[in-house]
């Protein structure tokens, strides 16, 4: 009934506007998704066939060969292991430390509430720069270690502010009651604040995990000569830089080889690695949409 009335109220202008708008949105979605879907098709298509061109959304000669090749490369497998490790460890430690400081600076009575907040916020507006930071890492003997991925980026001021805003929103009476019952700050933090902060923890975890998984520059800067500490993104970056300079001639040269059916090309390797490097994120972020939308608005308002 109400739907019918709504339809009656729709004017000609509404119909035209909505049609144009929906068409535009579909076009936009295609533009957003096409590059990615195209790489999936390329990664599942025989490399020698891809050279002929004309692969858009669907593979023409289906094969798992590209994936088999990528997962048989020791450097890529090592890269995946390190990427997973830094994402898990970096997120877990980063979140715990951020939440702890956020809890402390959310306490009204804390003597250093203001000064510590300012010390952290200041870091959003300047930094020492590339070379001084590099030399610091060298002097601290962090170069060539796994910890150079974790320690320098332990707490981001932006995430700290999002968390602080959320913790400040938790009703004070809950803390008071726990304190009357004799709980110290550590107990309040671990047993009350952390469980109540799950939505904001989800948001910030997503930000930190995505940042860790996507990072390539610190590998390039600190560990480029250390093969055991390479990451998936850095391996992909190396492939990208090679294909960019070799300009396609390589493709056809490889394809005309004897074992054409088993050949892989830089183009197909690049496509496959692109998919492997982005699939984990794509599987996770849609489920956290509600949280990160809230987190973004919370962080921006403050």
């Amino acid at each position: 009934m109400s739907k019918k009335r709504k339809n009656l109220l729709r004017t000609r202008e509404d119909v035209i506007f909505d049609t144009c708008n929906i068409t535009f949105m579909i076009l936009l979605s295609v533009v957003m998704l096409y590059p990615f879907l195209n790489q999936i098709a390329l990664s599942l298509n025989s490399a020698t066939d891809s050279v002929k061109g004309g692969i858009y959304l669907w593979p023409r000669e289906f094969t798992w060969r590209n994936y088999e090749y990528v997962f048989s490369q020791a450097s890529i497998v090592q890269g995946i292991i390190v990427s997973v490790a830094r994402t898990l460890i970096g997120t877990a430690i980063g979140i715990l430390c951020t939440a702890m400081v956020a809890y402390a600076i959310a306490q009204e009575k804390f003597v250093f509430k203001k000064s510590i907040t300012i010390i952290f916020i200041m870091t959003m507006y300047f930094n020492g720069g590339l070379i001084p930071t590099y030399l610091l890492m060298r002097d601290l003997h962090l170069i060539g270690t796994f910890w150079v991925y974790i320690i320098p980026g332990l707490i981001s001021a932006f995430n700290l502010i999002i968390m602080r805003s959320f913790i400040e929103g938790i009703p004070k009476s809950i803390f008071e009651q726990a304190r009357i019952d004799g709980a110290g700050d550590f107990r309040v933090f671990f047993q009350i604040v952390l469980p109540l902060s799950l939505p904001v923890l989800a948001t910030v975890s997503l930000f930190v995990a995505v940042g860790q998984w996507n990072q390539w520059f610190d590998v390039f800067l600190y560990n480029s000569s250390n093969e055991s500490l390479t990451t998936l993104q850095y391996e992909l970056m190396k492939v990208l830089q090679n294909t960019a300079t070799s300009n396609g001639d390589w493709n056809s040269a490889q394809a005309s080889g004897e074992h054409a059916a088993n050949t892989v090309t830089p183009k197909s390797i690049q496509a496959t690695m692109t998919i492997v490097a982005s699939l984990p994120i794509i599987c996770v972020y849609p489920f956290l949409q509600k949280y990160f939308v809230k987190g973004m608005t919370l962080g921006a308002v403050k």
Partner: protein
Amino acid sequence: MQAQTKVNTPASPALQTDQVKGLKAFLKKCKSQKALLLMTVPFVIWVFVFKYLPIWGWTMAFQDFKPARAFSEQEWVGFKHFIFLFKDERFLGVLRNTLAQSMINLVLGFVTAIGLAVLINELTNVKFKRVVQTISYLPHFLSWVVAAALISSLLSIDGIINEILMALNIIDTKILWLGVGEYFWGILAASDIWKNVGWNTIIYLAAISMIDQEQYEAAKIDGASRLQRIRYVTIPGMKQVIVVLLIMNIGYIIEAGFEAQYLLGNGQNIEYSENIDVFVINYGISMFNFSLATAAGIFKTVISLIFLIAANSFSKKMGQGGLY
């Protein structure tokens, strides 16, 4: 610390005892908040070591820095490296690229995000709206390495962009897009919009959702058309957020990032792709000219701080409140 030094200077005895009392009360408070201090002090040390200590390294911009030498053995050269930068034609080009890239990205990024937010808001089907939003956020979560791989594949000689343009008879020969410097700013802006436009709508959509629905009803009763409602209700309702974000983005104008420029840049487009950050990487990491790279980095930070402070005080004057 300050209180202690004051105690030592001659003052009236009453004041002294007051200060001693104050200090004692402060220490007592600290003691009662031992847990909170334990939670924060390690990270305050961390922030000083990793974020503040590197600023000491700025001194090397005024030296002919040699990594093997101790600090006391470095040769001081004053503003030599800064003077070199401003006489260097390459650096002046880098400066032009930084400003041009930032301006284009700022203006186009802004307009497209606002436009998309308004159009998403007009979608009536809730499910469709959610799907469009989810899809539009996707590129934001991909790394720039992945994005650069996707973009260079689209723009390659046998990529789809060339195919479409050929099919539409817009071009007669295929173009190596990333090999022509003049196209780089446009490609960069398009990549940036593709990657971030969806994400940037979040804040505008939040602002639109705060608009009183009665305003729309009233406009409808007054006979306002769909476009008129957008023009007179939605856009004015977003005005405050638009102004704040505009000012904030102007504050960050020199921070155009480096990942896209570095990854999409190559020998053929370097004259248009290299910005200050990439210049620092090229000189500092590849050529080991630490002093010159640091000088360029300092220059960028100082300009960026000036922009930020100016933007902030302007924002306060406009009655929008500061950012800090």
